[in-house]
């Protein structure tokens, strides 16, 4: 597949769109400022800024998990395209946020991404924007000093700026390239790749490719990218459902849900789900179709009684998964929408996961609960555990026995009675069987703590 896009203000094009963007930059164009440390989207070193014609703003994305075909018609800015004598870099350099320097270009891009997309430009927000920029040298205090200094220098100016890109171009932080106007995107049926799905043969269907490109080396298989970058049709509200696009980047979904205030629990889910550059690529459809037992998306949406819509049918989410990393999706089937019944969005929803590091880490066990409390008793509950069985499981027996349970009482005995038979954890590099089993129980107790705390505050 051919590719054509705008790189640092210049048109680039070619025949082999399957090449990874990082390799194209470093080894074909010799733009070696962009560094590759992990090549799996986990370190943030290779971030670049990407704006698709259907997006309003540049977003930081991992160039190691993007093929050139994914950049089609986009504008890409890399570290090598930034203006010289960049005042942001001068501020950064005096903070002590750099030692060996390998992660530094990615940090610069990450901070510009913050200045472009941050809502508050506070220190806390800055930390959440660059948390995925791992560093083995500094211990991150320099990064914290940099956030503070840059926030102080730019936040007032930017929060009042009508056009942040134009402002940052004016002060020499961004290159003075002509930025494409925002075009409302196409509807699903008109998506350029959607038609190809119908005639799919050896090609692989991908969302943002953030998992696929880890294992699938360039040019082995044609990939049909289903990712939609347009900013309309991301979330639809109807009388009985909140419908969420499965094909848009998760961060865009989160921002849209936030604006509509239709599913407050999603923002906490989003905080724990991967890093920002990954969320700018990954889709809920991809997270679901991967069918990993620790997929946060499956855990969360199972607890919400979500109906999955594909191009062929509608199916309750629980019926989609047939085994470890297996779905019953047919060859040409694409997950397009997640329909969350409106009735459940008013319940108290609590998503929690435990991983080795906490943030930007894959869960050992995750848990989502949906609770309705009436007169201090459980009147409705849904509980899902991920990472404790080949597929995330709904704990129906425990749920049934929790109905009518008083907030004054412990649930430990009920958990002990009903949990063990419902799960079948395994040993792997993230945790042992014994640990997973105990953790599953503790996460359920933590649900209960959270429900009680919520009730106390209500």
């Amino acid at each position: 597949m051919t590719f054509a896009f705008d790189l640092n203000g210049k048109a680039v094009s070619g025949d082999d769109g399957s090449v990874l963007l990082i390799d194209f930059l470093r080894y074909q164009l010799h733009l070696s400022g962009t560094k590759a440390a992990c090549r799996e989207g986990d370190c943030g070193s290779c971030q670049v800024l990407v704006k698709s014609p259907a997006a309003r703003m540049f977003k930081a994305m991992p160039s190691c998990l993007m093929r050139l075909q994914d950049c089609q018609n986009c504008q890409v800015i890399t570290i090598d395209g930034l203006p010289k004598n960049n005042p942001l870099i001068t501020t950064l350099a005096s903070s002590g946020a750099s030692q060996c320097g390998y992660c530094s270009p990615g940090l610069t891009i990450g901070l510009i991404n913050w200045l472009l997309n941050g809502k508050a430009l506070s220190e806390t927000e800055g930390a959440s924007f660059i948390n995925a920029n791992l560093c083995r040298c500094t211990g991150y205090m320099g990064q914290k000093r940099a956030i503070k200094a840059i926030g102080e220098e730019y936040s007032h100016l930017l929060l009042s700026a009508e056009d942040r890109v134009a402002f940052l171009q004016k002060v020499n932080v961004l290159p003075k390239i002509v930025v494409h106007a925002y075009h409302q995107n196409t509807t699903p049926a008109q998506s350029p790749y959607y038609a190809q799905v119908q005639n799919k043969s050896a090609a692989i269907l991908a969302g943002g490719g953030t998992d696929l490109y880890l294992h699938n080396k360039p040019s082995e298989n044609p990939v049909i990218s289903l990712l939609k970058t347009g900013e309309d049709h991301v979330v639809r509200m109807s009388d009985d459902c909140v419908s969420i696009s499965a094909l848009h980047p998760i961060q865009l979904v989160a921002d849209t849900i936030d604006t509509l205030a239709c599913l407050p629990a999603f923002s906490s889910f989003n905080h724990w789900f991967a890093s920002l550059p990954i969320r700018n690529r990954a889709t809920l459809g991809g997270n679901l179709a991967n069918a990993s037992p620790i997929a946060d998306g499956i855990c969360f949406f199972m607890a919400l009684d979500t109906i999955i819509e594909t191009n062929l049918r509608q199916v309750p989410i629980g019926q989609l998964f047939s085994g470890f990393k297996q779905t019953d999706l047919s060859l040409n089937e694409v997950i397009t929408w997640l329909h969350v019944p409106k009735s459940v969005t008013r319940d108290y929803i609590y998503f929690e996961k435990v991983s080795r590091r906490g943030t930007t880490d894959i869960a050992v066990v995750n848990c989502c609960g949906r609770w309705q409390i009436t007169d201090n008793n459980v009147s409705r509950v849904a509980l899902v555990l991920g990472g404790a069985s080949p597929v995330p499981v709904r704990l129906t027996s425990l749920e049934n026995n929790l109905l009518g349970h008083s907030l004054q009482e412990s649930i430990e005995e009920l958990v002990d009675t009903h949990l063990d038979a419902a799960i079948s954890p395994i040993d792997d590099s993230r945790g042992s069987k014994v640990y997973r089993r105990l953790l599953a129980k503790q996460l359920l107790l933590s649900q209960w703590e959270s429900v009680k705390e919520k009730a106390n505050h209500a």
Partner: protein
Amino acid sequence: MHNDSELHFSGQSTFVDDWPLPETTLYAAVFVSPIANGLLKSIDAQKARAMPGVKAVLTAADIAGENQIGEIMPDEELLATKNLKFIGKPIALVLADSPATAQQGAQAIEIAYDELATEFNVRNAYHNNMTFGDERQFTKGDTKSAFEQAKWVVSGQVSCAAQEHLYFETQISIAIPVDKDRLKIISASQNPSAIQKLAAKVLGLSMNSIEVEVPRLGGAFGGKEEQAKPWACLAALGAQLTGHPVKLALSRQQDMHWTGKRHPYSADYRIAADETGRIQAYDVKFLQDGGAVADLSTAVLERTLFHATNAYQIPNANVKAVSCRTHHPSNTAFRGFGAPQAIFTIEAAIDHLACAMNLPRWKIQQKNLLQPGYRFDYGMTVQTDALQNCWQQLFKHKKIEMRLADIQKHNANKPRYIRSLALTPLCFGISFTATHLNQASVTVTIYTDASIGVAIGAVEMGQGVVDKIAIIVARSLGVSVKRVRVDFTNSSKSPNMSPTAASVGADLNSMAAIKACEKLKLRLVDFSNTFYGVDLSPETNFENNAITWEDLVANAYLQRINLSEHAFYATPDLYFDRVKEQGTPFSYHVYGVSAIESTLDTLLGTYHIDNVDVVYDLGQSLDTIIDLGQMEGGLVQGIGYATMEEIRWDEKGKLLTDSFATYKIPDLLSSPQISVDFIDSPSNPHGPFSAKAIGEPPLLLGLGAFFSISDSIRLFNKTAPINYTLPLTPERALLALYS
């Protein structure tokens, strides 16, 4: 601050992988042993050789010189001939016209082998006499009678796991053939001269045929001291045999699978105290997992011996240590170099004692802190009261007792989130324990345009050695630091370099630089006295002098004054007698104390290291931002080692945690707030301008994270078993909370 910072943040600093390559360059892939122990019977590279784009497949038979890169012991072939000792042992080298083709070629190689029994347990290895070198022993006083007479005696076992360096730049080398028999190697190595020496040996050339250059490293932490060697030598071999430039870069997974880690240790301790908590005796035996080949293991082991009693005075000590051979990839240098395992062990022993005596751990630590005049078991004497000062300043300025009381109050009702604060005092010896490595040579050159170039025998890897040398040279010559530029490290410009390691790169090279500058300056002052008839003093600052630096240099050149000076520094008075195990192995000690506060979620076993306060005896800092960065970064690396960084192998020795996704290092949100006070103690004759080293010690100050969390575990579960196993992962924490 780091002069390179702006280059780094704008992506303009050149690393080995960024080096422009000639079009004729071939790309190398390494075919390695898929098994941890076995005998190689045959190699079939026919399919690989037949692949389009593959130019050559090389094996041990193609080596013109000696197939040997072991230094401490000759036990490491460059390419295996018969014995396959670990997963990742190089067997063949594939050279192709693209990196992808080379990798495909390597995958097409087939071998036949007999698999042999493997050993990954260090205790079993020890009992089966699988060791490197003899057991070493340091002794002081009479432990036998001290244990008999002591009021309190506790004993137990400690286990320290491996740690992955996770430098961001993976192992990489480029070899470029020049003339008939010359080679230029550009390598990401902390040890350019060793690469020069070994490449010459493997290629059958003399050292003067090989030039090794290191622009800078994208992190190393010890992982590129020995373990950059095979890849550089293989690239050189490929270049020699094909006549093409060769680039060899490991992928992240290859790097994690094939290269060594921090040494796992297993230790048995016994400690005795009187009724007041004064330590009477300490008996410890360390078993080190050296991995499959010797590498630096015995040197690492030696530092374990030196730091076995950490920052405490112990009248009777008996310290034994032995390096054992297993079938893991050879473990290697890692910031701290054997000291973390030693210091964790004594801190664990003291913790155990505190539990038994029902005393706060810090009171036992405080009671036994080193005092001036104390003689270590290896013969050196404590010179200063710096440790006591650090401890007192920490308590006073960071309000430790008040915070401990607050925490106690917070924990009184057994809340879900329990907090704890742990103290770690530190004494760390500065110098290579291999005495002969304590040398450096530096050349300072003033060019005719008055700019200054410096060739040093140290490699920049983020620690700021280049900046420190520039500051030293500028100060010594009396010019602005803007005039000074330190060259990329080059084996021809700075011959016979020691590795940049042991926290002494800045010390050794600065001392040599000062000598060179003093000679240069004296010469220029003499010249100006004669030439201008002005009486300049050696303290002259040329930036505000009537005679400008440019003018002086221009005239000196015309008058044929030598504007370049080479100087050599060897740390004086170092020696160590390995028969008596006595001597002066260190030029000085550094001291510091950390307080690490954490919060443990007793429901889920997750924790957060909230804040760290440190007081450190830094002498006179050359650059506070650089030194602060070393402290903050080292602490977080140490905290990672103590908490979340965990390596897992399967039963065949195959690494399971082989990516950033499964091997987790701290990120910004999981890292603590850090507050550092540097004590600027007056004079240190062994450091440049009275500065002191700071490379490795900060990592050790992070070990307290373990005790901070384990204190909280015990507050929640009084019957939790005492299990001194690093790292204290959320998994271990939760299982202990509910055991």
